[in-house]
């Protein structure tokens, strides 16, 4: 790690307007290394605006972002990805019709030189993806199977294993357990804790307080564009968080 022990990412005094709507009103937010932070709040609280700023979708109107101690500004999501910040939106993580190995290496395919041409090294792509999937606790019989044949939780697993393989430092998970069965959700939570063991931080954005409570080290509550709570999990309870979200 380059910058010692400060937080991995720090957002300071973030403001954002959309026309007349004052979406973020001076939010301070940070994530430590290998920390899982739950980001909760009701609809319109500003959760998705905050993470979109952090993932480079749009810039803040006022405020600064520091990554590993250095001031950064993102022109596009690519800039954030280059630094190691990857956002997994529910629907846009994988291409359903493509097989697992091809999805895994999309945009960063492994090739081998064959005379004058570079061809895909499918064998290696299959091996490497299989290895990463197993490391995260996802057993797949055949990585050449199209992703659309996988369950929702397994698809999340593929995206998470990919993030781990490519040494992402911070994952932003936008409602990862939405539309998943209880069993599947548990699986995704398990994947996230594996990532934490690997030293990867996550921001877990959700409506589901129970899910986030089971896995987060810290929970941040937003309401009407302000941060109204920031608790270490051990200092709070599910009931208290729910009260914060509802009452403010």
């Amino acid at each position, binding site marked *: 790690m380059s910058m010692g022990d400060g937080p991995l990412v720090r957002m300071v005094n973030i403001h954002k307007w959309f026309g007349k709507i004052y979406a973020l009103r001076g939010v301070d937010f940070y994530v430590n290394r290998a920390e899982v932070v739950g980001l909760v709040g009701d609809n319109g609280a500003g959760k998705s605006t905050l993470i979109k700023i952090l993932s480079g979708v749009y810039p803040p109107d006022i405020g600064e972002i520091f990554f590993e101690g250095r001031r950064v500004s993102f022109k596009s999501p690519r800039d954030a990805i280059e630094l190691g910040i990857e956002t997994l939106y529910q629907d846009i993580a994988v291409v359903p019709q493509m097989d697992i190995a091809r999805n895994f290496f999309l945009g960063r395919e492994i090739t081998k030189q064959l005379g004058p041409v570079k061809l895909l090294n499918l064998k290696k792509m299959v091996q490497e993806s299989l290895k990463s999937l197993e490391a995260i606790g996802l057993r797949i019989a055949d990585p050449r199977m*199209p992703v659309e044949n996988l369950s929702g939780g397994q698809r999340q697993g593929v995206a998470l294993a990919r993030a781990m393989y490519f040494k992402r430092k911070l994952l932003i998970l936008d409602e990862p357990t939405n539309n998943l069965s209880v069993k599947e959700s548990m699986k995704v939570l398990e994947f996230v804790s594996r990532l934490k063991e690997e030293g990867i931080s996550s921001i877990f954005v959700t409506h589901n307080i129970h899910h986030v409570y089971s896995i987060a080290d810290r929970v941040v509550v937003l309401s009407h564009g302000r941060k109204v709570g920031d608790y270490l999990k051990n200092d709070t309870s599910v009931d208290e968080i729910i009260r914060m979200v509802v009452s403010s």
Partner: protein
Amino acid sequence: MSTKAMSQQLNNYPRRGTGNTIMKIYQNFFKTLRLKETSIAVITISTVLFFYSLQPVFLSSTNVNTLLSITPELGIPALGITLLMIAGEFDLSIGSVFGFTPLLAAELMSTGIEAELAIILALLSSSLIGLIHGFITVKSGIPSFITTLGGMLIWRGAALLITGGQPRYFRIQERIANLMTGPLFPFINAQLFWFISIMTLLWVVLERTRFGNHIYATGGNRDVARYMGVNTDYVKIFCFILSSLLAGFGGIIQSIRLGVALPNQGDGLEFDAIAAVVIGGTSLRGGSGTIFGTVIGEFLGRIIENGLVIIRAPSYYFRLYIGVVVIVAVILNFYIARRVKEGERP
């Protein structure tokens, strides 16, 4: 990967119990079915047997030779739009480009330009046409269905305008003609050689290169592809260029074979080609499809066309049969894909 290799991988996976062998056979059965080409290959073989049983002349060497020399010129454009359709776009203009390109070459030759150069310039023009269609589609965001519908009318109109509706002779030195349509070996003429070469090349591009992976991703889910760093605009424009270039190439081959460039050459080709691609299992919504599927689909079209003539059915039946086959093949693909999904679900 071959079915064998897949099942080997499956065997390494510890999922055991009673009925082991039956399970394996069952899984392999679905693995084979998963190859999109299977159902269409079965239909094609049945069709061949059907025509052969009615009229054995169908499989005579003369007739097989005819089939093998006509299929490439119409199949090469279909190979081109396969990639484009996998990338999630359409090209309705290929029939018009198929007619326009050889006419342009004939026109250039009539001004005294060497045949080779005229053909190369005409093919460059057809690539440029693809570039224009692609650029407009990608930058304006309008559906390629519209862009290339416009293109279809424009380039057909241009062909009629250039010629005043009259056919042009397409006579070139035998040396060049042989390169494009001459006989090489028994049953293998130059155009078949071109067809197989282009097929192989495009298969490698699609299945074994990074760019091929990006084509599938662009058609499968453009947002994901973009997010993962794929330049989807570039991918699409490239596929438009390829589609147009191969349409022009097919047109040149046909004109050389016939010795004439007709202003209405390739009229309706776009629909036959799209039918072949769809029959071959390529998704209309993009994201999936195979080169071999298109090749089989194209052969099936030509076999039906030719077979109807051989059994002396009125040739008007052709479109009717192709229409039925399109619907049946797509339903079959759809049904099999669903069954495979159920059979495979872990």
